[in-house]
């Protein structure tokens, strides 16, 4: 279970406050969607959960299964079960995708006090996962994300999530830059990972993604806070009416 309580966050130099007392609880097995206009703080929330160092936490706490994430470095959070699928996955020339995947999986196993994966087991798992997402073997030999299209990068993020088996998967605008076919493949990849002990936080601008990854709860974010919570029908309402209702009542 992920619990965020009264979270206040500013960018590192303290010049601008982005999250203003955000509360959010996601239960095991739950798929929660966060929607909101540009600049409402959605991506910041995902970075703060994952442990990006550019932010100053002014108040509040983030607990994953009772453990305080804010006291951990990014790599410890990953080992504890946090996975962030980046909106813009980074390219790492010179590091073969396979090398990177193995390093990440082994680092997490080590951090959890488990033994390292045997190479044949690792190869089999990667091959299987890649096939499901339509990722050709040739891509795995190339530098991580180097020369990949937007859709290929997003599929690679989902493959990493499948291999690392997090307890919470955060998808930061995973639908951005995807055509309809890629959106379907990525969504199927996510749906295949849904389970009773894994939850998801799906961040998106548009309702479209939620046709494929059907959420249990929908939260509207505005000016660094959750301003409305509902079921999946809330997404449809937002699609029809826009965010104006939620943005203006804060301004009024």
């Amino acid at each position: 279970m992920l619990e965020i309580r009264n979270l206040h966050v500013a960018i590192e130099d303290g010049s601008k406050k982005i999250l203003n007392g955000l509360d959010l609880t996601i239960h095991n097995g739950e798929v929660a969607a966060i929607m909101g206009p540009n600049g409402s703080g959605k991506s910041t929330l995902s970075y703060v959960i994952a442990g990006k160092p550019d932010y100053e936490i002014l108040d509040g706490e983030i607990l994953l299964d009772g453990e305080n994430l804010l006291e951990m470095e990014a790599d410890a959070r990953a080992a504890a079960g946090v996975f962030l699928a980046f909106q813009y996955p980074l390219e790492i020339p010179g590091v073969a995708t396979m090398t990177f995947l193995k390093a990440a999986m082994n680092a997490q196993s080590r951090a959890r006090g488990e033994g390292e994966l045997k190479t044949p087991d690792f190869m089999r798992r990667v091959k299987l996962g890649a096939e499901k997402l339509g990722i050709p073997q040739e891509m795995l030999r190339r530098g991580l994300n180097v020369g990949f299209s937007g859709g290929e990068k997003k599929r690679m993020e989902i493959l990493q999530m499948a291999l690392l088996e997090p307890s919470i998967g955060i998808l930061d605008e995973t639908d951005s830059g995807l055509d309809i076919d890629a959106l379907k493949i990525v969504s199927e990849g996510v749906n295949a990972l849904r389970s009773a002990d894994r939850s998801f936080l799906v961040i998106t601008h548009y309702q479209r993604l939620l046709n494929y990854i059907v959420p249990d709860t929908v939260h509207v974010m505005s000016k660094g806070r959750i301003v409305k919570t509902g079921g999946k029908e809330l997404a449809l309402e937002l699609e029809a009416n826009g965010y104006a209702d939620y943005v203006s009542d804060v301004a009024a």
Partner: protein
Amino acid sequence: MASVTPLKTAAELSLLAQAEGSKSVRQNSFARYAAKGLPHRRVEAYHYTDIRALLKDAPASAQKAGVAPTHFAFNEIDACVITLIDGQVTAVPTNPLAGVSMNISDEVPDDGLAARSVFPSDGDPIIALNAAFVHRTLRVMIDAGCAIEKPVLLRCITTGAVSAYSRVVVEVANGASMTLIECHECASGGLTNSVVEIVAGDDVSVEHIRVNLGDESATVLTSFGGRIGVRSALTSGNFVTGGALSRHQVFLRFEGEGATATISGAALLKDRQQADTTLVVDHSVPECVSREHFAHVLDGEATGVFQGKIIVRPHAQKTDGKMMSRAVLLADGATMNNKPELEIFADDVQCGHGATVGALDDDLLFYLRARGLPKPEAEALMLQAFVGEALEMITHEGMREQLEWLSETWLKARG
């Protein structure tokens, strides 16, 4: 106003004492050195590596060759190994490899004045000192049309606080191919001054690799000259983790059209180490291609220097030259000096150069850490990739893997 005669340093006085009245020292070459003394920061080619200030002593040559250490980093490389101990080659194999012959010659070493010399004609002081003090020259001849299977590996060892001068000339006849590796192991307080020259004929393929694994208080000065014939390809890679002071000078000249040179270097330095690569590529004929890629990883108070000059002569049309030097600074005290230069006198050429100095990318570091890699491991992976860009240009697979492994070891030790 009276001119000021600078005081000689301890190293300069020692060199003078070693040369004075000595019959084995070649006085003409010594005079070429002595005219200017040890190079200092007001000499442009040595501006960033002030040998005069950095060289505390110039010990005498060993009277008797010392004992080679048993451990050798490249034992696993299947090669024809020639060991030069304190600059001396006592014997060469009679049948080293098919297509290869060797001899030890008493010839007068080139100090820049020999006919068609590839070394600076105005007298590089380090090469002049080598020509003055070196005992004999090892000559390696590769027969025409022969593809030499195993590399010739020069294991150059300076066994103690002595100076070791060595000189190797490799002649590669038309249509031949070979790999030449020079590995420098220099003990604490030692001074290595090595000159290697490759004269490549036409349609030749040569790979040269220089590795400096010297002790952290050693001085390793190496010069490499290459003359490249028609349609020939020369690759030269330099790898440095050792030495308090390392200077590697490369002088290349295209002498035939349609030839290619690929020069690379990787240096991983810490504490107060300094490594300098100074490169001159002379496009004296048309239609040749040169590629240079250098990577420096600098920790502690280390200093990296890259000076690269591409000269394109007036008639050397269709020259294609690209030079890149990149450095990552891992500590506030680390320094990189980049000086790329293009001197272009022809009008139909493609030449470019780039130089970057920076820290590791924070966003990339976060991406790797968000996947579970602890900070040291994430940094090591990024640096391995950074160094890998330069090592990729080395074509001998065994050596490339060895150098990748040495980089990994260096990065792991950093923690």
